């Protein structure tokens, strides 16, 4: 794929036929060079962000999200989702990001990720998960957004839409700030906004498919992702769509893409773990899982 061409389209917003009318006038050598430079900046914007800056932006975004919805006051639950989340993230190409997971006080069914490795799921979603494999699938989906830098790329294309060369310009335009701290603050705010607004469908499909791969790598039944989507679908039709998984697209379309992409490719791993005693212990509000709960035999 021609990166420059793609980013030129992104940068100039020339998706509509209206742009073609002006092209003749604009095609001077000088303008072409300018446009190419501009597009290159936009395409490389994510690269300009160092890993440290990515984490700093992510922390700003997480602080912003937590300012709206605090942590559920249940340390055992919070530690547990980190155990599962870090285990799943360890199967990705970025096992050493500062991965952090949390359940936030929000009755709706949703989940969020920020750059750098902060992942938040709502209490409403946690309450509806029925196995550790389902939790792993949800976290695997969000982990994919982080690993593939979907939010940074969404910010980059927002910069393009606003006819800015790069993320730094976006940050400046957001508040007119100058110093680095302000910059990170503004970028973090931008990342949190994208987290609640949601990503493009293509990124969601990517996160489902790669999330299933991560779930399988972590030793779980990857089809728990399908179970979660069917739970969401059932939930949507029962609640009149009131509490939809609102930053995520239609569960039915997502299952269609999983079927086309994954199909039976992951069936060799379908005998993986579904349930664990630590999950059922946390669900019951028991903080000492292994000691009290007898292990249930894993299916198959």
């Amino acid at each position, binding site marked *: 794929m021609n990166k420059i061409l793609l980013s030129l389209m992104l940068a100039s917003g020339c998706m509509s036929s209206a742009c073609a009318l002006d092209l003749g006038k604009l095609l001077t050598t000088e303008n072409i060079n300018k446009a190419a430079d501009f597009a290159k900046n936009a395409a490389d914007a994510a690269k300009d962000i160092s890993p440290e800056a990515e984490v700093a932006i992510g922390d700003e975004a997480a602080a912003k999200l937590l300012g709206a919805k605090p942590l559920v006051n249940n340390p055992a639950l919070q530690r547990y989702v980190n*155990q*599962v989340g870090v*285990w799943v993230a*360890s199967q990705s*190409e970025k096992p050493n990001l500062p991965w952090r997971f949390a359940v936030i006080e929000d009755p709706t069914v949703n989940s969020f990720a920020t750059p750098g490795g*902060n992942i938040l799921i709502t209490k409403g979603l946690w309450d509806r998960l*029925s196995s550790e494999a389902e939790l792993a699938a949800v976290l695997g989906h969000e982990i994919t957004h982080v690993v593939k830098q979907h939010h940074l790329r969404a910010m980059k294309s927002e910069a393009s839409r606003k006819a800015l060369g790069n993320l730094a310009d976006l940050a400046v335009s957001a508040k007119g700030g100058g110093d680095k701290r302000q910059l990170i603050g503004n970028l*973090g705010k931008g990342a949190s906004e994208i987290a609640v607004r949601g990503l493009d469908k293509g990124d969601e499909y990517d996160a489902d498919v*790669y999330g299933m791969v991560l779930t399988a790598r972590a030793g779980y039944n990857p089809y728990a992702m399908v179970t979660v989507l069917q739970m969401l679908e059932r939930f949507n039709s029962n609640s009149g769509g009131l509490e939809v998984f609102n930053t995520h697209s239609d569960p039915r379309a997502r299952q269609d893409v999983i079927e086309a992409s994954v199909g039976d490719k992951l069936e060799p791993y379908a005998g993986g773990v579904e349930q664990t005693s630590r999950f059922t212990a946390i669900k019951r509000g028991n903080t000492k899982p292994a000691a009290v709960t007898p292990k249930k035999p894993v299916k198959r």
Partner: protein
Amino acid sequence: MKIPFMAALLPALLTGAALAESGSVIRNTELRQKPFSDAAVVATVSSGTQVEILSRQGAWMNVSSNGQAGWVKMLSVRVGNGSSADAGSVIGQGVKVATTGSSGKTVTTGVKGLSEEELSHSQPDYGELERMKGFSTTPADAGKQANLARLTAVQVPEIAVSGSSGSSGNGSQNPSSNPQMRR
């Protein structure tokens, strides 16, 4: 096993048919005696047939239809009634639904969930962020705990996304599945 969790659900769910989960098969499918591709065929169900969902196992779903029970692939079934009346009922309840043209994603506002509007009214909470960091763990510890939970890591190759252009109707905006994003 689902019953205790039901207590935690909102009344909105309880008024629906949440207990008897139903769905319909999306293609002509064989109903098998066991959750294996080479298990004996009990019956054939045609596309669109309503089924009652009894249980799930691995990639399979135990369903019953017209008095016959058997196993089908989970991905051959879509749950719910399949109508797209949801948006209508949401609007009926005074909740705003906006579909953005460029991405095709549906954004619902006006619910109690975390929204951009709510975000704009809130201040970053760095104390809460620190608390969140305090619950984190290391890959080594998570690995140890996973092994105690009888989990072991498995080698699984990456899978490319396909079939998204048809359902989204917007395949050109999908740079995420570009080879350049893959490692």
